[in-house]
């Protein structure tokens, strides 16, 4: 029952949004995976995205992170309309994703994963700066209190929670605007989940926006400032976590509570 400890002291929901989605729609052939989705995400805020299997949550994350272009609608990053050609463009603009299935290179050390695809080099011969990578990773891991035996440890020798910690630490290191977390604790035990939740909650202090997908309503209520509900691609509504309860959210997810007029 550590709920209060994870709650924010103050949220800045009144500042201008980091990311603004307006009327986003996504069709796969004839199937509409997302229809008319609108949401603002603010720095220092954690928003949960909930919905049943196939509701379109991962699809939405892929749209925001540049993997899929939206069929319709507008995305604004810090007030500027953006259209990402692919995931690396979104990354360059400060949007990081922690994927459901991690995306770590298993046989490489932690520090190489931290810099995967963005390895620093030094000197005219552009030699890999391993020292620099190791030092930066040690600093980050200490700051975020990710407990791993060493930054030189090989990923596959780490536990599930430690791996997820590394993935989130990597996202934290590179994100300047927004971190998207797609079911970050789906495969974890109780203690490891608690550790990852602590880590996610600590991201508030880093002045970036966080969008987290989760099937655990307990977790959603522990972590989030606002909750956005999707059902079969439709946005059912957004609630402030403090102003709602599980029954209402469950009703919205399952369809017992119908969507409000926009």
């Amino acid at each position, binding site marked *: 029952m550590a709920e209060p400890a994870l709650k924010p002291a103050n949220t800045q929901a009144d500042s201008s949004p980091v990311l603004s989605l307006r009327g986003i729609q996504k069709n796969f052939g004839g199937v509409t995976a997302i229809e008319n989705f609108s949401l603002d995400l603010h720095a220092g805020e954690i928003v949960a995205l909930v919905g049943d299997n196939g509701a379109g949550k991962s699809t939405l994350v892929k749209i925001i992170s540049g993997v899929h272009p939206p069929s319709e609608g507008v995305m604004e990053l810090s007030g500027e309309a953006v259209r990402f050609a692919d995931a690396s463009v979104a990354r360059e603009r400060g949007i990081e994703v922690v*994927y459901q299935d991690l*995306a770590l290179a298993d046989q*490489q050390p932690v520090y190489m994963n931290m810099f*995967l*695809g963005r*390895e620093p080099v030094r000197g005219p011969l552009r030699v890999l700066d391993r020292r620099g990578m190791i030092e930066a990773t040690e600093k980050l891991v200490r700051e975020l209190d990710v407990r791993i035996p060493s930054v030189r440890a090989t990923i596959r*020798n780490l536990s599930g*929670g430690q791996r997820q910690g590394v993935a989130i630490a990597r996202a934290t290191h590179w994100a300047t605007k927004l971190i998207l977390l797609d079911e970050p604790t789906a495969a974890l035990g109780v203690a490891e989940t608690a550790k990852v939740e602590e880590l996610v909650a600590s991201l508030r202090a880093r002045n970036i926006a966080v969008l987290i997908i989760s099937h655990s309503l307990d977790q959603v209520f522990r972590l989030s400032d606002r909750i956005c509900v999707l059902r079969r691609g439709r946005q059912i509504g957004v609630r402030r976590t403090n102003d709602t309860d599980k029954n209402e959210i469950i009703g919205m997810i399952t369809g017992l509570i119908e969507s409000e007029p926009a």
Partner: protein
Amino acid sequence: MAMNTSTMGNLTRRFDLQQWVVYLGFLAIFLFFAITLGDSGFLTVRNLSNIVLQTAPATVMAVGLVFVLSAGEIDLSFGSTVAVAALAAAVVMQSWPMPLGILAGLGAGLLIGLINGALVAYLRLPSFLVTLATMGLFAGIARSMTNLRSVPVQNDLFTGIFGSGALLSIPSLVLWTAGVILIGHLVYRQTRFGAHVIATGDNPRAALVSGIKVARIRLTVLAISGLMAGLAGLLYAGRLQAARYTLGETDLMTVIAAVIVGGTALNGGKGSIIGALVGSLLMGMLNNGLILMGLSVSDQMIVRGLIILGAVAVSLREPNR
């Protein structure tokens, strides 16, 4: 959440053993031959240096293969590439200046590598099938190029550079081996390209979402392998002073075994250039020792096959998790 420390220690120790297997194996086989074949001339300087000179082409090919395997691909065509490259160089040198022969040999290797690479990287065909097909294709081309005839290489400068020559009394084949190993090792361990090759083989999806140009990596590693096979062709032509369609024919198994024994993972993400060098020397030593023991060719093949099988089994055994 903290991992059991004794399990951790265990994993680390076993992992280390795996990396040292090639060096221990090298030492064990060396000692075995030194003791049993001491009187048959195994330990003479001449014989030992012969081993090093004879393995030069295989070592060069092994470096290319470390890149290919590390990226999660395979190349079966480098043996045929060797023959095509050597013949191309020899034929060109019959009527044109020597440098054009070098270009023809290296160019043929690079071109074959690029063909393999383009089919794998951009048509998304499995490298096993692509290079199995091009292995046959270029073996056929090597045969038809000169109607099975061998082509003499009489240019003294060429045979000096790629064969019997020496610089500061270091044999040129040793210099080629050392140079390729050194550059290969630095590129593999110390550059972003090397890191991206390894990441691509370890987890292609992770590499892709991390912005690594996975297709270009696949193209490049197969091109490197082709180029190395081209160079190996020149080294054969230089040492033997002739090119033949049979060159490289028996190298496929030897080079793959050398690389695997040297600590490179067959399914990508892990490898060692230095390990491949020692693995290649080990294979050369094995060849040499079995001949000195007076084994018939068929017995040599059987014993070599068994030893390679054992070595590969040890080096591929994953630590239990």
